[in-house]
């Protein structure tokens, strides 16, 4: 089930929260768990085996962790076996391009692995309540597309949390703001990218090709950022504080900085569970680069098993390595230079990410760099599409800065804020009702 869909907004959400708030404290986690099961089951109705896979993953995580504590001699074996179990399904589904990827598998597998690794390393004891562990893995706000939460971030709240009306309202506000970001910004910007693909990259003029990849860059950001805000908002409405996933990434001065501010929970996961265990940057320059290469190859593969994602991951490694070796510090010191560099690098880095094949990406690259001329066919295309989508591109730039968020924070009057959020909500619902909706881009990972 998609957050930005009318059935979710008008059926699931009200019914769920009615039960959730009406339930006595000791039953709230049960409502959360069974609500999440229904959320997932409805969303994957045509593939009940996906629900089976998720339930099995939770059982494996729960009993392996307990087993690692109880049978210390087999700790290593149990950890390795459970790790292989998760990796097997991830590789199996991601490499089989003809099969439907189980919703959220990349996210819940990583949450399970982080939990098992932490229990293995004795960072905290194994959870003894299946209810709590399954809520951690399965709670619907973060089940499908993160943020990738680690157990200590929700453990206390799972055992005991408060539901202040103030927090509930704040959570609702965050949810609505995220919904607006997805429906009013991402989906509209997605229209330009969709149109560019419908025209065919080979027929785009160079200015339109740049507009299209810019639109994709903004769409991806507001789509995923919007989703993360919705997840955080829903979590807060139930007394959870999820880690933030984005910190104005498009204002970064280097690619290294960008990946500290984009999909933060995935970056932290790789740092904590791959990069640092491999030795991080403590074992000399050569080892650092080897570790970075491994992390970026895995990051690419996490997004998909195709060659485009692998090349995308490797190209990020090259950029980050070059920044470390050559010009990273200069860019960080000189903001204008850094912004110009990123204005160029960010859209280009998304080309491989956005294309279904390397040959499609190479066609887009050829149009971006005017191979065979600036205007291959319809020379007025960029004027036409700027007329339609120009305002959304300007909004994209604006909402990538701090300005609108600071403006929103400066509204002290509750009624003004409520009216503003109501307006966003109304406009979003109107767009959804008109059918101007798209699924979330990050649901395919």
């Amino acid at each position, binding site marked *: 089930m998609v957050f930005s869909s009318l059935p979710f907004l008008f059926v699931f959400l009200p019914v769920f929260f009615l039960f959730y708030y009406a339930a006595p404290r000791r039953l709230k986690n049960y409502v959360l768990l069974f609500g999440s099961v229904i959320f997932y089951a409805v969303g994957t109705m045509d593939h009940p085996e996906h629900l089976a896979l998720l339930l099995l993953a939770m059982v494996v995580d729960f009993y392996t962790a307990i087993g690692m504590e109880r049978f210390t001699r087999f700790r290593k074996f149990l950890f390795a076996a459970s790790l292989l179990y998760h990796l097997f399904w991830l590789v199996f589904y991601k490499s089989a391009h003809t099969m439907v990827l189980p919703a959220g598998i990349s996210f819940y597998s990583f949450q399970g692995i982080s939990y098992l690794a932490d229990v293995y390393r004795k960072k905290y004891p194994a959870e003894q309540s299946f209810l709590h562990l399954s809520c951690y893995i399965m709670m619907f706000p973060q089940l499908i597309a993160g943020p990738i939460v680690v157990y200590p971030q929700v453990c206390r709240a799972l055992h005991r949390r408060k539901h202040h009306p103030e927090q509930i309202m704040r959570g609702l506000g965050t949810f609505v703001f995220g919904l607006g970001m997805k429906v009013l910004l991402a989906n509209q910007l997605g229209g330009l990218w969709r149109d560019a693909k419908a025209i065919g990259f080979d027929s785009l003029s160079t200015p339109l090709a740049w507009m299209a990849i810019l639109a994709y860059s903004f769409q991806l950001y507001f789509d995923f950022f919007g989703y993360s805000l919705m997840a955080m908002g829903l979590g807060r409405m139930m007394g959870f504080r999820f880690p933030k996933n984005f910190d104005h990434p498009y204002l970064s001065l280097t690619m290294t900085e960008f990946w500290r501010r984009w999909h933060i929970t995935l970056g932290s996961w790789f740092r904590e569970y791959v990069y640092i265990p491999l030795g991080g940057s403590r074992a000399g320059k050569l080892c650092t680069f080897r570790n970075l290469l491994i992390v970026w190859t895995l990051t690419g593969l996490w997004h998909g098993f195709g060659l485009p994602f692998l090349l995308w991951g490797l190209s990020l490694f090259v950029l980050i390595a070059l920044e470390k070796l050559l010009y990273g510090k200069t860019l960080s010191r000189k903001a204008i230079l850094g912004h110009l560099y990123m204005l160029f690098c960010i859209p280009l880095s998304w080309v491989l990410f956005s294309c279904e094949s390397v040959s499609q990406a190479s066609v887009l690259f050829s149009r971006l760099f005017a191979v065979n001329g600036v205007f291959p*066919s319809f020379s007025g295309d960029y004027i036409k599409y700027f007329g339609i989508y120009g305002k959304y591109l300007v909004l994209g730039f604006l909402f990538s800065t701090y300005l609108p968020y600071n403006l929103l924070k400066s509204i002290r009057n509750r009624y003004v804020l409520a009216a503003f959020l109501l307006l966003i909500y109304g406009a979003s619902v109107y767009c959804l009702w008109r059918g101007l909706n798209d699924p979330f881009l990050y649901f395919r990972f």
Partner: protein
Amino acid sequence: MTLKKSNGILILLLFLVLLVTTTVSEFRKQLHEPAVEAPVQTDVPTLPETMPMETAEPAAPASMENTLFIGDSRTVGLSEYAKLDEADFFSNVGMSVYNVGEARVSIPEVGKVSLEELLEGSSYDRIYLMLGINELGYPFRQTVARYDELVASIRSAQPQALIFLQANLHVTKARSDTDEIINNPAIDRFNQEVSKLADEKTVFYLDANCIFDDPAGNLDEEKSDDDTHPLARCYPAWGNWLAEQTGEVLAYLQGAIA
């Protein structure tokens, strides 16, 4: 109840939910599977041939001067990518027989006009019409009636013009199989009604699906990204095909007069 026991009960309950989900899913699948019916012999008339006469030598492609195209997004694509620069285009995305009367479109050297104003103020030798896909959600007979009225109004405003009714282009198999409204059987059903309006004297029917279809009669997936519109690079072939087909019609008419 011990924690161990409650964990076991909870897991059992969850797998019970899974069992229910699987049952519901199976039931839904059975519900959606089309019932196998014996083929019924119907009295559907076959489409008339596009060309009324076979010529020994291919006729020269017609020029597109003094020509008007009326249509939806596919015609917009034709105006932008088919290199038919001499023609006028009264088209916009989403145009249909229901809104073509209210639409105002910018025509070079004429300005922003309605179709009625355009037809009153200009004289065209040939008018091409392609509408019908955006209307598939509307009642079928009502749409056919509105289409007839539109053709009649074009005919009365431009009695000298040859009218070419273009078949609506197919969608890909992926869309046709999943879209309950816009699918190829529905498109073919409407096209068949359109083809009946051709008298092969002043109104002709042209079906360009032969350029874009795969062998199974769906829009070729290689020629479309959005399952509905041909890629821009395919439009020049459509433009050339139209010029050739029109040339054939003109040669036929000249032959008939002689």
